[in-house]
């Protein structure tokens, strides 16, 4: 596979995943918080084309399932009635880009459920939660990266451009932030904020914490680039006809940091996605019932869930291609 193909594939995958996350309300058949108390850990429903009588149907269908006896997770299909998959069906309300909606891409008639990825302990659809959770986890990573690189860029530029006292203060603080292992630092900063907060606030808070804690590394890198950039003769020449500091930074210095910022972004986004996942996994992030890939994985801390219901691993498995794609992207960017 050539580098170019790899880059295009990585970009395509990331675009698809992020679009799916944005369109979660429409793509998901159910609301991520809708419970089915009679269907805990219902397994993924196979899409069927051939019914109990051996007749082939062009439109796929599912059977309704019921729990067998007292053993959680043992289900039997009711084959007397097939529930065909319907498209563009009305259902739970959601918002897409601020607009209310209630049409879902697919669904089946009540009382059956279409759990393509199974259900969790509350009988909530894993696929719906995975899609909505992606909204939280992936965008937390993106937004935190923007914040971290923004702050790092600003401080690194100021530090490198003005030097002297400002530089000393900023670089000493950076050292302070780098003296702590990053996860410890992240947790310590998280510890200073309220623990139980509503999910929307928790999301913003996570973005802030993750983004602000890690400014030191980008700041150092940007400073290095700025230090060499400001020594260029054309910067001196521009000073010679009266250019202001702001102009020099905007016109001659910042453009040189663009490549670095892009490569860093591709490296930081997956790291920050994982930071959100880790925090939410440990109960320090976005909390139930709102799904994030982190708090969805938290259920795996129970050994019976860990060992018995493979579909509960979905968010963890979904992370792998996303991270791979970001790494491929960063590699492609850095070898440009």
């Amino acid at each position, binding site marked *: 596979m050539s580098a170019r193909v790899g880059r295009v594939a990585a970009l395509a995958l990331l675009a698809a995943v992020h679009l799916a996350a944005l369109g979660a309300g429409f793509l998901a058949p159910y609301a991520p918080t809708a419970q089915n108390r009679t269907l805990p850990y219902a397994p993924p429903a196979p899409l069927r084309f051939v019914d109990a009588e051996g007749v082939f149907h062009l439109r796929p269908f599912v059977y309704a399932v019921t729990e067998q006896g007292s053993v959680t997770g043992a289900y039997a299909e009711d084959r007397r009635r097939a529930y065909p998959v319907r498209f563009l069906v009305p259902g739970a309300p959601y918002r897409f880009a601020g607009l209310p909606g209630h049409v879902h891409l697919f669904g089946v008639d009540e009382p059956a459920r279409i759990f393509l990825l199974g259900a969790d302990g509350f009988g909530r659809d894993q696929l719906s939660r995975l899609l909505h959770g992606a909204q939280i986890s992936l965008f937390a990573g993106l937004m935190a990266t923007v914040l971290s690189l923004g702050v790092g860029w600003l401080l690194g530029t100021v530090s490198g451009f003005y030097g002297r006292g400002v530089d000393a203060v900023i670089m000493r603080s950076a050292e302070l932030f780098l003296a702590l292992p990053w996860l410890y630092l992240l947790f310590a900063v998280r510890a200073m904020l*309220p623990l139980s907060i509503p999910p929307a606030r928790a999301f913003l808070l996570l973005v802030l914490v993750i983004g602000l804690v890690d400014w030191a590394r980008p700041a150092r890198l940007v400073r290095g680039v700025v230090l060499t950039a400001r020594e260029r003769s054309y910067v001196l020449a521009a000073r010679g006809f009266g250019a202001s500091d702001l102009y020099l930074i905007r016109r001659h210095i910042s453009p040189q940091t663009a490549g670095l910022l892009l490569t860093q972004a591709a490296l930081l986004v997956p790291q920050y996605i994982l930071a959100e996942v880790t925090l939410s996994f440990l109960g320090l992030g976005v909390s139930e019932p709102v799904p994030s890939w982190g708090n969805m994985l938290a259920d795996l801390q129970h050994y019976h869930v*860990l060992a018995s219901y493979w579909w509960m691993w979905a968010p963890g498995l979904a992370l*792998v291609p996303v991270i791979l794609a970001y790494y491929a992207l960063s590699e492609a960017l850095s070898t440009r």
Partner: protein
Amino acid sequence: MHGLLLLAGVSLLSFVLVELAPGDYFAEMRLDPRISEATVHALRARYGLDRPLPERYGRWLASLAKGELGYSFAYGQPVGPLLWPRLRNTLLLTVTATALAWLLAVPLGTWWATRRRGPADAALTGLTAMLLALPDLVLVLGLLLLAVRTGWFPTGGMVSLGHEQMPWGARVKDVAFHLVLPVAALVLGIVPALVRYVRASVADALGAPFVRAARAHGIPERRVLFRHALPAAANPLVSLFGLSLAGLLSMSLLVEVVMSWPGLGPLFLEAILARDFHLVLGPVLASTFLLLGGNLLADLLLAATDPRIRTEER
């Protein structure tokens, strides 16, 4: 010296951060109708929580000097004695994992460097890429699944029931047995990056002019590798050792919590959830201390392996 200053800076920074947090251990008590406002107030006064920030920092520093590191409200005792065994356990875990990871990475990376292109190269590239992309959390959970499914290894903790009654040898074995899973997680977590770096450094050294010259003089390939290329690659590797510690400690936090290894991690999380602030500071400082200590060690190693560095004053 520089390290001590940093440690002092981190202590001040984290103290201020943590003390600025809204709510404290006693704030939770207010929710309990049986405890009166006056009682809470009296408790806070008793532990000095009503004093101004600089005074609290001063008191905390004083207790730091005594090795107490402040007072844990949840445990009703100084932080120090709670922290030391945890620090020891984290150290046991991370040192074992680091040693193993390097023992694995250096030979593997060196071998890989001599085998550019070909099936081994492709396989190692793919394998390390896969492992790099595997989130630490998923890796840890996967190993836990393995342990639960097979029953080969204990799934958590550091000792079995009845550990205290075992003879000395059995106790060591017991701990070693419990170490397997968390160490495996850490090793798998850090080895991919390490191997890649070792390969790159050795490959660089093999391509260096003086090494090529040695080869051109007909010195056997093995001797070229061990006498010329590896020593040249030692420097970047020792630097990497210092750099890789931060990642190792971070991952250790996660591993300890998920596999209930009684190190700094679980204590840290517990303290955060209980808003037990001085107990939060303990692991923060301890991990900083470990990181700085590791970097100091790397600097010393670097000075030992590279005579040029020794003469350079700071």
